[in-house]
């Protein structure tokens, strides 16, 4: 049994004009204690929506189907009723731009104590002690807890946001673009901290980002999302060296590498709209390897080999021969 298990997750949003937007489609992944999973893809691919669902924080316009289990217990079964006991206690989240969302009129320490008291984890002096211990754990000196967010630098505020997320001793941490607005040196400090926390506390980490190199350096596994669904998942090493979906390969090719000499190429076109039914493969209009079957038939995510899933018809072509992904089609 995995610590976090997401199965057949779907999210639809009601649109003002009466339509529906299928933001998350059949998403599933699982995570053990101390494991780090990267959820990557372009903006609008559903990665943030997927983890907000795990937290039970979607707006009322959303309809959810599927199953999310934490240590075997179903989180979504009873809606808000069942999610409340897990939220922050078992699974916590660092929001995108969290460092800019701290309350400016409360000290950093108070903001960590608040969730502790609300969730009855600790109170009074004990909570204060615990808050300072957490701050120290994320690299902020104990005595700085009495300061206000504006007295902190961006990196320190991000550390404080991390300490807040850890206030109720969660087992799973969901981090949405935790380093996006930070400088490269501060990014390195925060990533080192996240890796350290997941190693030391056995924290299962889901890292949501569009930054492939960050995932490559921090995570064990990754799931690549496109148009609301996972199109490929596996060990990051395999995804980079032996991609089994053209989108994974093109995403890496669009990312410049410090020492890489090969040309950096954009992926032409844009992701499809999710408020209408998609025929065939959703990536087909942008794919450099698409063939007639891709227009007619939507590929399903299935095992390519052990610990690797991909949703691409090319994998049927030469049964198991990864060369079909390596060579680029001539135009």
């Amino acid at each position, binding site marked *: 049994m995995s610590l976090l298990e997401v199965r057949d997750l779907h999210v639809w949003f009601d649109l003002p004009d009466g339509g529906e937007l299928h933001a998350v489609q059949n998403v599933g992944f699982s995570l053990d204690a101390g494991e780090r999973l990267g959820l990557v893809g372009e903006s609008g691919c559903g990665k943030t929506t997927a983890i907000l669902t795990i937290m039970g924080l979607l707006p009322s316009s959303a309809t959810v189907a599927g199953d999310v289990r934490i240590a075997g217990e179903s989180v979504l079964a009873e809606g808000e009723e069942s999610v409340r006991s897990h939220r922050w206690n078992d699974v916590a989240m660092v929001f995108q731009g969290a460092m800019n969302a701290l309350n400016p009129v409360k000290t950093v320490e108070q903001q960590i104590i608040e969730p502790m008291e609300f969730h009855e984890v600790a109170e009074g002096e004990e909570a204060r002690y615990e808050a300072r211990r957490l701050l120290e754990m994320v690299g902020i000196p104990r005595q700085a807890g009495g300061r206000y967010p504006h007295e902190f630098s*961006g990196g320190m505020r991000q550390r404080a946001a991390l300490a807040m997320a850890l206030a109720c001793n969660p087992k799973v941490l969901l981090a949405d673009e935790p380093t996006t607005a930070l400088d490269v040196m501060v990014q390195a*400090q925060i990533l*080192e901290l996240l890796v350290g926390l997941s190693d030391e506390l056995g924290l299962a980490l889901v890292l949501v980002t569009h930054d492939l190199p960050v995932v490559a350096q921090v995570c064990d596994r990754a799931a690549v999302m496109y148009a609301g669904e996972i199109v490929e998942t596996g060990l990051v090493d395999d995804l980079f060296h032996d991609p089994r979906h053209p989108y994974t390969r093109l995403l890496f090719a669009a990312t*410049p590498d410090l020492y890489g000499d090969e040309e*950096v190429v954009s992926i032409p076109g844009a992701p499809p709209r999710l408020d209408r039914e998609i025929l065939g493969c959703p990536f087909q209009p942008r794919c450099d390897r698409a063939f007639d079957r891709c227009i007619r038939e939507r590929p399903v995510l299935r095992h390519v080999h052990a610990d690797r899933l991909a949703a691409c018809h090319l994998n049927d072509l030469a049964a198991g021969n990864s060369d079909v992904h390596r060579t680029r089609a001539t135009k």
Partner: protein
Amino acid sequence: MSPITRPETAGASGALVEPPLLEVSDLRTRYPIRRGLVGALIRRPRRWVRAVDGLSFSLRRGEMLALVGESGCGKTTTAQTVLRLLEPDSGSVKLDGRDITSLPSRDLRPLRRKAQMIYQDPYESLDPRFRVRQTVEEPMLIHGVGGNHDQRHVLVVEALTRAGLTPPDLFLDRYPHELSGGQRQRVAIAASLVLGPELLVADEPVSMLDVSVRAGVLTLLDQLRRSGTMGILMITHDLSTASHFADRIAVMYLGRIVEHGPAKEIVRDPKHPYTRALLSVVPKRDPRDRTNPQILTGETPNPVAIPPGCRFHPRCPVAEPRCRVEDPVLHRVRGGTIEHEAACVLV
């Protein structure tokens, strides 16, 4: 008519080499810190943020120079001072061999036409009520160039085509909200191209864009400078992007360049300890390439209190006692090419 003379006249005399498109020498720009009423009454000394503090570099035509560094290092202040959006305290900025730091404001208009800026956020830099054609036409109206309505239309279409928005007819009547991030940034680029600029200053031109379209916008900038006489000064914090697209990289720290040289050489053989540390923490794309990051501790440096001696010494992993007193100047590094310079007494 234009107060900025073309360099050909100098070249024609045969004696002079064509000056670089942009030449910045010993530039200093600082901002005062408010003292408040009490501070003023008790005559507390005025303090300054020394954002740009003795900066020199040059940019040739057809070249792309990347200015890299952490936030607060003075990259953006440099860009604004170069375009005279900010007044420098001292030093000079020469465009085409002509000093623009002392130009009276009435002469700034031709300068604005020659030097254009691309901003970071194409979601904010475009007027949401303007159609693409209006956005691209507006600079010509402001500068009173481009001829009559029909001639301007031709120029608008041409600029859109150069910016890769083809066919232009598809985009002319759209509003920004109907465009993707990459398309918006291309519209912003088109709007600067209509004036035929010679210097393009791009401040983090792709950091707000999706990974999948970044390369396209950067390739466009790359083509623009290769196809003409335009020089591009790109401000970025992304060293991978800089190493891929720029000819040269200049690394800034606390308002000054600490190392510069050919892009590939800076990335493969960095000399200054700061550059080395900065490069070591850039995440690599290949998961197997997990080199040990050399993470500098301490806060982002404060340009109000610049340390004496070498300004990097408090965070430097290899600092020696003399680094606390000696302020190193840029000099050619041992074992580097002629253009590779660093400001460190150890290299």
